[in-house]
């Protein structure tokens, strides 16, 4: 394991160096929000806080082209039309800088969904392989954070290539994966092993500040038992607005829509787009016939909660939740709906 020390004033030059070879995404403040944006030389140091929106968009953009399509007419024979399809599966070398452990762990959950099944998602895979994740371990868990409840923690290394912990005068960088170690080894940064203990102490301190842990080990079993308890779900969901804030903020929500936009016969052709979709929308499962297996929002909430704490445990070989406890869905919910409360109630009541 390579351990380096990066002085506070060395951060921006180091990022500038990275930016020469990678697209660098880092959090910056925009209005009240903190957003991951491409970082360029000349930009300020990234904000050392949890971003408002999880950085999953770096691997799984809010909207991307799956297939470009275009038809071409034979000028000699106008009704002879050929169809050309292009699938731009490509990824630039990328560094995701300054996400939290909960964000990095989100990619592990997404890996299960996109790379763990019968078919792999080549778009995600390409970007995942091309991306190096430098995680800024968490030093200020918020009241909505609950990473420790879902087997994570403010400094969980899962999903990260490099862990970075703020210490006196700078940062300790620890290589976690081969990719991460290689990056640090070639970085020319001084050794930081001597600061590792300080970093560890700070992390332990941070972990203590996470909202006291509740035992969710029975979640899958209890949710299964609750499935038909509609009164429970209606009561828990009453205040939900059915918007997509929770799912779009979420580091693990994987669902997407596919739509064709643009006319194949037009000069510029069209694109088959993949865009984020949200299971709280009544449109999500509505069929052409009008039939909708999840017509009421209670059924949709049941699906969302069950997916995260029950279904995912079935399809993940390691039985993990599809939730990293980042708490964004609580903090950013317009009605402050608390998913922790639902799961705990489902278990306890």
């Amino acid at each position, binding site marked *: 394991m390579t351990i380096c020390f990066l002085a506070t004033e060395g951060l921006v030059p180091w990022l500038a160096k990275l930016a020469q070879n990678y697209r660098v995404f880092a959090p910056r403040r925009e209005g009240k929000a903190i957003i991951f944006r491409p970082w360029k030389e000349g930009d300020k140091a990234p904000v050392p806080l949890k971003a408002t929106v999880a950085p999953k968009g770096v691997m799984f953009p809010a909207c991307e082209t799956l297939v470009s399509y275009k038809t071409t007419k034979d000028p000699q024979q106008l009704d002879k039309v050929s169809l050309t399809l292009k699938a731009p599966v490509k990824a630039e070398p990328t560094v995701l800088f300054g996400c939290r452990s909960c964000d990095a762990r989100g990619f592990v959950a997404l890996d299960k969904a996109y790379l763990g099944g019968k078919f792999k998602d080549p778009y995600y895979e390409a970007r995942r392989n091309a991306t190096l994740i430098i995680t800024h371990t968490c030093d200020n868990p918020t009241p909505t954070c609950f990473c420790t409840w879902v087997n994570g923690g403010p400094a969980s290394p899962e999903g990260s290539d490099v862990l970075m912990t703020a210490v006196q005068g700078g940062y300790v960088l620890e290589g976690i994966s081969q990719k991460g170690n290689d990056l640090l080894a070639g970085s020319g940064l001084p050794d930081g092993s001597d600061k590792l203990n300080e970093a560890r102490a700070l992390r332990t301190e941070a972990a203590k500040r996470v909202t006291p842990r509740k035992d969710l080990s029975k979640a899958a079993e209890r949710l299964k038992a609750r499935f038909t308890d509609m009164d429970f779900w209606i009561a828990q969901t009453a205040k939900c607005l059915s918007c997509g804030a929770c799912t779009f903020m979420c580091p693990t929500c994987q669902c*997407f829509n596919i739509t064709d936009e643009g006319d194949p016969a037009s000069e510029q052709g069209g694109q088959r787009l993949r865009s984020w979709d949200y299971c709280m929308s009544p449109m999500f499962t509505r069929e052409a016939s009008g039939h909708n297996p999840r017509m009421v929002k209670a059924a949709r909430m049941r699906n969302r909660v069950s997916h995260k704490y029950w279904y995912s445990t079935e399809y993940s070989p390691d039985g993990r939740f599809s939730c990293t406890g980042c708490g964004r869905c609580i903090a950013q919910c317009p009605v402050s709906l608390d998913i922790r409360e639902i799961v705990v109630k489902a278990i306890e009541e």
Partner: protein
Amino acid sequence: MNELNPLLPEVATVVEIVQETHNIKTFRVKLDDEERMKAFHFEPGQVGQLSLFGVGESTFVINSPPTRMDYLQFSVMKAGEVTSALHKLNVGDKIGVRAPLGNFFPYAKWKGKDIFFIGGGIGMAPIRTIMLYLLDNKKDYGTISLLYGAKTPEDLSYKDDIKEWLADPNLNAVLTIDNPAEGWTVDDTHKVGLIPNVLKELAPRPDNCIAVLCGPPIMIKFTLMALKDMNFPDEQIFTTLEKRMKCGVGLCGRCNIGGKLVCVDGPVFSYDQLRELPPEL
């Protein structure tokens, strides 16, 4: 399927269109890449995604059997945006195909058994593929029967096939329509009545018999009840599920029933499998 990119369709050409009923058309398509068409392999019950670029994609069962590979056949009932647009296609038009997708009927396990097919309306499409496949391999199976029902005689698809089926000595085919209609003479093979009722009349024996039923949800519901009344065990009843699908390859997350994804874990389920799933159809 494109091995590298399961979301990238292959270009295909519509070679023939059959108007089955007022709202069902059958499309016969060929992949443009002849090599790939030759190498195309699928199992009965598997589905394909047809793309009409600029409109979208939709899932249909491949209802020609794997034993007859001149073309891939899909039957499309007009319902939403994609199916309506498909209905406007002409022979020679280009579409996209992603196939085969999903699981298939476990016909290997059915060897030596009697098979009773029950198809309602557009649900005849998945039945057609497995039934023709089994008929092409008749020696491996016992009695093969078909009960195919529709609202009116005009709503019966595959009219050319039906003539052959009624004449086929290897198949006991019975047709039914919901209400009496002019020109529909009731006899041993032509009935009037809802599928569950006619089924009870035909009274297939449950022992050593596999029941395969496909059709609209309401028909499935009552036919299942009828089969249970006739003591068909859960594991001998098979059906196919339909859900709103987008990716068809287990990624987009909307066709789940509990932890199962209909697009990759289905569409074929036995009734005992279904009972294990959360009740969210």
